């Protein structure tokens, strides 16, 4: 755009452009009221949902218990231990029972333990090697 036009625009800025027209303003009032109402409605609903949510979550276990009492066959099945695979044969039965009890206590919900076996020295070889390297990486200085 030529510079003369810019100068002309600058002159217009000072006078006509900043004339305030209250009538035009009033035309927009209904939309402004609608807009702020929708914003408040949306955020009031969001706020209500947030306030109700923890209470609803707290009621859930009690509702579960209630329905479990109504229909006993739908009660949570006790934790079951799958027949141990061949390589876990070395885990003693009493240890398996303890693991099953701990899992049932921690998880609560019905679950199935699929696999349990003892760690062999081969299993921990990598971490053992890493730890050894770490420990031997420092040169210990004698205090004078």
């Amino acid at each position, binding site marked *: 755009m030529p510079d003369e036009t*810019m100068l002309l625009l600058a002159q217009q800025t000072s006078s006509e*452009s900043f*004339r305030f027209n209250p009538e035009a303003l009033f035309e927009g009032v209904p*939309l402004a009221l609608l807009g702020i109402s929708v914003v408040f409605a*949306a955020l009031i609903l969001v706020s209500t949902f*947030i306030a109700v949510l923890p209470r609803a979550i707290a009621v859930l276990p009690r509702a579960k218990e209630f329905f479990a009492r109504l229909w006993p066959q739908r009660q949570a099945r006790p934790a079951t231990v799958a027949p141990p695979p061949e390589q876990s044969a070395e885990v003693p039965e009493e240890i398996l029972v303890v693991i099953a009890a701990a899992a049932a206590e921690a998880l609560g919900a019905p679950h199935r333990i699929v696999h349990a076996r003892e760690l062999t020295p081969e299993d921990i070889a990598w971490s053992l090697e890493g730890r050894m390297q770490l420990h031997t990486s420092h040169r210990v200085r004698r205090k004078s």
Partner: protein
Amino acid sequence: MIDYLTSIAAQVFETTALGGISVGNVIMIVIAMVFVYLAVAKHYEPLLLVPIGFGIFVGNIPAVAGMTSGIYDEAGNLMPFSQFEQWGVLRYLYIGVEKGIFPPLIFLGIGAMTDFSTMLSNPKLVLLGAAAQLGVFLTFLGALGLGFTQQESAAIGIIGGADGPTAIFLSSKLAPALLGAIAIAAYSYMALVPVIQPPIMRLLTTRHERRIRMKPSRQVSRLERILFPIAAFLICALLAPGAVALIGLLFFGNLMKECLVTERLAQTARTALIDIVTMLLGFCVGVSTSAHSFLRPDSIKIFILGALSFAVATAGGVLFAKFMNLFLREKINPLLGAAGVSAVPDSARVVQMVGQEEDPNNFLLMHAMAPNVAGVIGSAVAAGVLLSQLSN
């Protein structure tokens, strides 16, 4: 020989952009230098001001006949789709701004990095995010009074939402001619939040109110965090369907973050994706501010209205917090209302700063994040309402 050399020099000069450079272009280049200076030396919103500033440099190189590499043709009009064979790469990139593609992608990244837990632990504070949107609608009225059309006024008003992507999204849909000025005003005032807000906050609150301490937030469960984005999206999108693109991607990003099984996607959204889109968005907005489209009386009015909208939004939030205190047994610190202006996290930081001036042991930052992120939702809903009412 001299004639020959003169004619050659004239030919060379014609192929350069030097002949077409105007005083306006020089002014814009100086403005770009100020932007880059503020970003580099003063650290004011550098991630935005550097791309925008450099984009202004690029956008103010005048077009030369047969070499239209910018987004405007030689007559200064945005190159239309019918002439896409002549488009340069910048014009193709500008489609992301023109068609409102970049802002929702930025919202995806924002969603993937936002922690809504402070808001979930204190639902009352959500309302402050709504109150701060008063700035949007009062500025809308002010712009109408100053002679802008309803569509232009809506796009100008949304500057008060203090949300750059939302402002760009709405102006690309309702007032594309004003996009450059609106985007620059929105980002400039966002950078100036620490200057604009504190005097208004101090003016509207007493010393006693500024010293009010908030109760520590409660722990929010994972289930709450997962259910929130789904429910909040359904509520907001059903009430303001115009904001589906913005709100949808915001909450989609947040669900990816909170459900913990899409960590890779959330990580990409909050790092690589948002960085790429921010670069392109900022740069393209800068490119669109060539002198003939930016140096107009309307731009001055937009800047004045933008400052007004930030001030009204801040005042609206603070006064609404005081109003809420009339009914609450456990009072909230009214400074938190100022954080309803959704400049995340700048306005929350300002609340912390002003609060600590009165009581150095009062930590309001985490509480201020609640109205701050509620403000992001509020401004997107406000944009949705304005878009659905005015897009026809």
